[in-house]
């Protein structure tokens, strides 16, 4: 199998292509955040204070509330600004990645251009609202 070689100018670089590449790189970005959360958690003592499921939960979202039910003795290092920033980064990547995924699934089943346009704007609206709410909850909880 040989790779198709069509130049970028001929192919164009539209919304779908942009989001296609964004989906791939945001996945890598979330892997990076999860890896940072894993290393950070182990440095803060997760090896003896948390079980695997709680550790994975922390890796998916570095919110200090997610370690409340573990044997972590002191929550202060888990609620530092650093973890709020990595959590915010994760929220923004995950919300955009996830809601665009939702849109791609919808558009696979919607054939009417009007509905496609409607859902595209609706998803952008939900994205802005949910990203704002998520970051707000993370910083104020």
């Amino acid at each position: 199998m040989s790779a198709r070689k069509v130049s970028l100018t001929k192919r164009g670089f539209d919304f779908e292509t942009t989001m296609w590449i964004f989906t791939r790189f945001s996945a890598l970005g979330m892997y990076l955040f999860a890896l940072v959360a894993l290393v950070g958690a182990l440095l803060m003592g997760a090896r003896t204070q948390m079980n695997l499921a709680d550790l994975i939960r922390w890796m998916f979202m570095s919110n200090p509330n997610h370690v409340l039910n573990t044997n972590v003795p002191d929550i202060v290092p888990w609620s530092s600004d650093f973890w709020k920033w990595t959590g915010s980064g994760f929220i923004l990547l995950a919300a955009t990645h996830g809601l665009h995924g939702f849109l791609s699934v919808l558009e696979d089943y919607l054939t009417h251009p009007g509905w496609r346009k409607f859902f595209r704007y609706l998803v952008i609206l939900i994205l802005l609202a949910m990203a704002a709410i998520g970051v707000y909850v993370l910083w104020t909880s």
Partner: protein
Amino acid sequence: MALSRNVSLKDALRYQGKGPMLTFILHRISGLSIVLFVGLHVLGSFLSQQFGSDAGTVINAIYENWIFQIYIISCGLFHAINGLRIVILDLWPKLIEYQREAIWLEWFVFLPLFAMTVFVIIRTALAG
């Protein structure tokens, strides 16, 4: 845009895509589940925190149930591991030739991790 569909539901269900098709379907189901449940979880936390609403407590009570935890963590793990395979194959298109082997490798990574996590969740649930 070529948007008209000529495939009937019956034909679609008969389509045997085997391994790659299975991962495609599971990727969609797990992705939609994550969007829905994580979205509700964030919204619930926001409502309880901001307005003292019971919505967050109700939602979190469902989410803290061990059966639900098994479901959502398998969605998260599968989506993450299958997603990594997609990213690697898409960024190095020459590897597409080996996608079936990649899918086998993916199950070898996913299943032990999944089994260990489920074991931990059930053990915690049984301990009360």
